[in-house]
């Protein structure tokens, strides 16, 4: 799993990525000015409605909130102790609304589309003589490196387990760092051998 994208056909999926991003940005700016529960209640209803419109898989996404539960409970307790209980309720509602809204954009927009929308923002890089597509190349490299690193580490760990019987040790960090760094040097050379990233600017 390399993205939290929810594979589905829905009207939210079809809405242009730029529009969704803009909507969430504006909603965040506005909602941070608001302190009244009576405004957050309908907002919460709207966001929940949007998730519901995605069907069962959409509603299943709400389980993401579980990760926040503990924090929200403590937050409410702190506000209750300091005598600002209702303010605490409002803040929690704002947190939930904004979290769900932003998450909705992420689960209904493919990474490529997101990248496409952001791409123009990198245009200024050209002023410094850099290709505006470098960030995209960086993203690709990261997506390729991360699984490779895990592989390097698991090979080291297996060898260590065979030698000592122990499952792993901090001692593996040094050989891991050196081996994977050497790999990144190889990648840099391979990139150069293929004409380098400058080839992308054309």
């Amino acid at each position: 799993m390399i993205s939290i994208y929810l594979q589905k056909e829905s009207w939210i999926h079809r809405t242009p990525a730029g529009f969704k991003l803009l909507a969430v940005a504006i909603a965040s700016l506005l909602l941070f000015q608001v302190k009244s529960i009576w405004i957050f209640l309908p907002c919460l209803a709207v966001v929940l409605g949007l998730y519901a419109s995605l069907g069962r898989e959409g509603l299943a996404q709400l389980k993401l909130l579980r990760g926040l539960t503990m924090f929200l409970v403590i937050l409410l307790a702190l506000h209750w102790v300091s005598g600002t209980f209702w303010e605490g309720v409002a803040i929690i509602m704002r947190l939930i609304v904004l979290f769900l809204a932003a998450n909705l954009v992420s689960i209904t927009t493919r990474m490529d589309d997101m990248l496409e929308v952001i791409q123009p923002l990198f245009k200024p890089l050209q002023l410094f003589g850099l290709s505006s597509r470098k960030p995209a190349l960086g993203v690709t490299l990261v997506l390729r490196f991360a699984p490779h690193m895990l592989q390097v580490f698991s090979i080291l760990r297996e060898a260590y387990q065979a030698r000592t019987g122990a499952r792993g040790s901090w001692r593996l960090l040094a050989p891991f760092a050196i081996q994977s760094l050497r790999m990144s040097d190889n990648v840099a050379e391979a990139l150069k051998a293929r004409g380098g990233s400058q080839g992308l600017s054309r």
Partner: protein
Amino acid sequence: MADRSLVHVAFYAALIAALGLVPPVAIPFLGGVPITAQTLGVMLAGVMLGPVRGGLAVLLFLFLVALGAPILAGGRGGLGVFATPSVGFLIGWPVGAFVAGWIMNSMKGTNILVAAAVSAVVGGIGVVYAFGIPGVAYVAGLSLSKAAIGSAIYIPGDLVKVVITAIVTQTVARGLPGAVFTRT
């Protein structure tokens, strides 16, 4: 930016992502901000790559998170995380890596173990918390002191990461000196 630099920036961004798979230690307080190994990657990026590339590596990582890659500890990702109380810490990461790299650069004469530890403490802890605590306070509507007390429980874990950063940096400096850019 040279291709080599781009690859190194991507390498540390990937390292931070890979460290996210180390199971987070959950402390049942302020559950929104779990203890993770990822700040280790932030410290290493700054200490090894120096200010600019170190900061860029963390920015690239955050860019992937924003694009929807579930690479924050616990498989979190997407724009939603920037609406949670962790947001201040996330913003503090690239700045912290930058400061760590800057200090590391200006301590070239000092013992590498000491220099790496000092850089990691100031950049990876000091700067990151300077952003993180107001972030918690702002998003959660708490006073700064309450947010600070709540965040302080993560500091012992961060100190462990400082030690690991220093040891790894020293080891790499011995085994693959060219990879410690702050020393070349």
